[in-house]
Structures are given as C-alpha cells and as structure tokens.
C-alpha cells in the first residue's frame, strides 16, 4: 500500500442564488500550508470574490487528501467484496449521541463460525474498537460524533451483513 499525499489543499466554495440553487467553484493551495494559513488564504479569496458576484457564499471547505498510487494496478484479493460489511456502533459520552462505522469487506475469519456475529474478543477487532474510543494520540485526537461528543463505548455487538440479504 502506498497512500500518497495530494500536493494541495483543495478549497471548495459554494454559492447560492435566491432560490437556494447552488454552484461550486474551487482552487488549490500548497499542502505545506498549515490549517490556519490555508483558512486565511481561503478567507482572502472569498472576500475578493464578493465584489465580483451577485451570488451569496453559503458553504466552504478545506480538504486534505491522499490517493493510493498502486491502485488499480494492484487490486484487492478475490475474496474482497464491499457489499459484505459490519457496522460498529459507538456510543457517545452524552446520550443519545452515537455514531456507526461500517467496515466494508469484513473478513469472514473475524466472524464467529455458524453466526454473523463479529468476534469482538479477536485481538485485531478489540484493538480497532479500543482505538476508536481512544486513539492514544492525546486529548482531542480521538473520533467523536457529528456534534462533537466523545465516543466512549461500543454499542451492540457488530454483525456481519450483506447488502440485499436478510441475513449476513
């Protein structure tokens, strides 16, 4: 695997008309800029566009991306199938906050034989669950819910499922 950093920040600006139809434009900034520097550059450009347009800026985003340089030349193994998946539901520190992570192409070896239940006692599964609750990379560096509530525990035991299948 060779995930390679994109050389740029991708800036996207969304403008709206009276009826809330939207139109997007974008530009790029050097990836070497910090988040603060990229944000400042984005603000400068939007302020300079403002006197040139009749539309209204309603959304903007900054994106840092990566791409896999060896794909599709080196594809996933034959056993892979993204329509086979397992949902990991995590509960936030404040109810009812929760979030679900769907792992595609979950390995069948991680599913308890004769069931669709993911074996959460497996070391790799347990490490993933623990890492999602606390990455160990410092305060403020662990996944949260959409509203920013820290994730503190696993919800229901994850099950293997398959799209369009009543069972897993």
């Amino acid at each position, binding site marked *: 695997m060779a995930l390679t950093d994109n*050389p740029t920040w991708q800036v996207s600006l969304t403008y*709206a008309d009276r009826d809330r139809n939207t139109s997007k434009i974008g530009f790029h900034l050097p990836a070497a800029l910090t988040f603060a520097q990229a944000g400042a550059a984005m603000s400068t450009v939007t302020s300079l566009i403002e006197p040139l347009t009749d539309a209204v800026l309603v959304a*903007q985003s900054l994106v840092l991306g990566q791409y*896999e340089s060896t794909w*599709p030349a080196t594809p*996933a193994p034959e056993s892979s*199938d993204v329509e086979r998946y397992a949902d990991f539901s995590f509960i936030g520190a404040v109810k009812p906050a929760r979030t679900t992570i769907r792992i595609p192409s979950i390995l069948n070896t991680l599913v308890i034989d004769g069931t669709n239940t993911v074996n959460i006692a497996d070391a790799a599964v347990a490490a993933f669950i623990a890492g999602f609750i606390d*990455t160990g990379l410092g305060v403020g560096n662990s996944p*949260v819910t*959409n509203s920013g509530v820290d994730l503190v525990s696993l919800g229901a035991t994850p099950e293997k499922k398959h799209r369009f299948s009543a069972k897993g």
Partner: protein
Amino acid sequence: MIMPAATARVVITLADRDHGKARISFRLPFSISASDAAAVRSHIIGLMLPLTDARVIGTQIVWEYSDATPTLPAFDVKLQTKGVLFYRNATRAEAFYIPAPKPSLYETTGEYAGIRIDMSNPTIAAAINAISAELANTVTIEGLSFPDEYMVGGLVL
C-alpha cells in the same frame, strides 16, 4: 454568517477486487490540527486494515463551514452563468471561475459588450488585479504555481 462545523470529517475510500467502492467516515474535533488529523487517520487505517480485505484507495480530511441563514440575493441573480478569468505563464494556462458575476463587470460598448470583463474601468481592474495577486499564491491541482499573468476574463453561459 459562515460558521465552522462542530467537527472535521475523515473519509476513507476502499475498493474490492471488482472495483466496488465503499466509504467510511468518522469525525474529529474541528479544532484538530492538520498534522494531528493526519496522524489519527493513519492510526485508524492501521487498526482497520486487519479487519478487511478491501484496499484503501483514498482518504480525505474535510473541514467544512456553512451559513445556515444566509442573506439571499435578489430574484434576478443568474447562478447558471459564470465568469471566467484566464491566466497563463510560460508553460501553461489555467482558468478561475466566478459564480453569477455582476453584469456591471463587463464592457458596455463594442463587440464584446456584456461579454468581456472591462479592465478599462479602474474599479473593476483593481478588483481583478487584487484577486489575480492572491491567486498567484495558489497552486494548480498538481501543486504547480498558478499562472500569474492575467489574460482575459468574460462571461460563460
């Protein structure tokens, strides 16, 4: 007023053998630095890979801002039109687009009336020059310097 979202979004795209694709996304505190977000992304991918035989083919870390109650423009704003500014340097040309450009930007007489940006108007020229100067600090999608010579600008339908 444009406000930051509560969280930043990490998107991981995976593909199976048949190029079927799936996306995982999770959230991080909006205030996280780019370098810390990248470290968390790598950490989570490292924990996830032993669970799947799909391949990670791309990732994104997205910081979003939005205005939930924008002051909407007049009824006659034409979002279907765009203005385009063309730039060049010794090796390439690039375009920069402006949504729903003000009709007052264009020349008012001659064969390009209503079409070409009027650089003879000092106010308009100053605005175009200001944005051109800032765009010179940006890069192309490949990470190359954005061309710094303004060529021409006009209306795109």
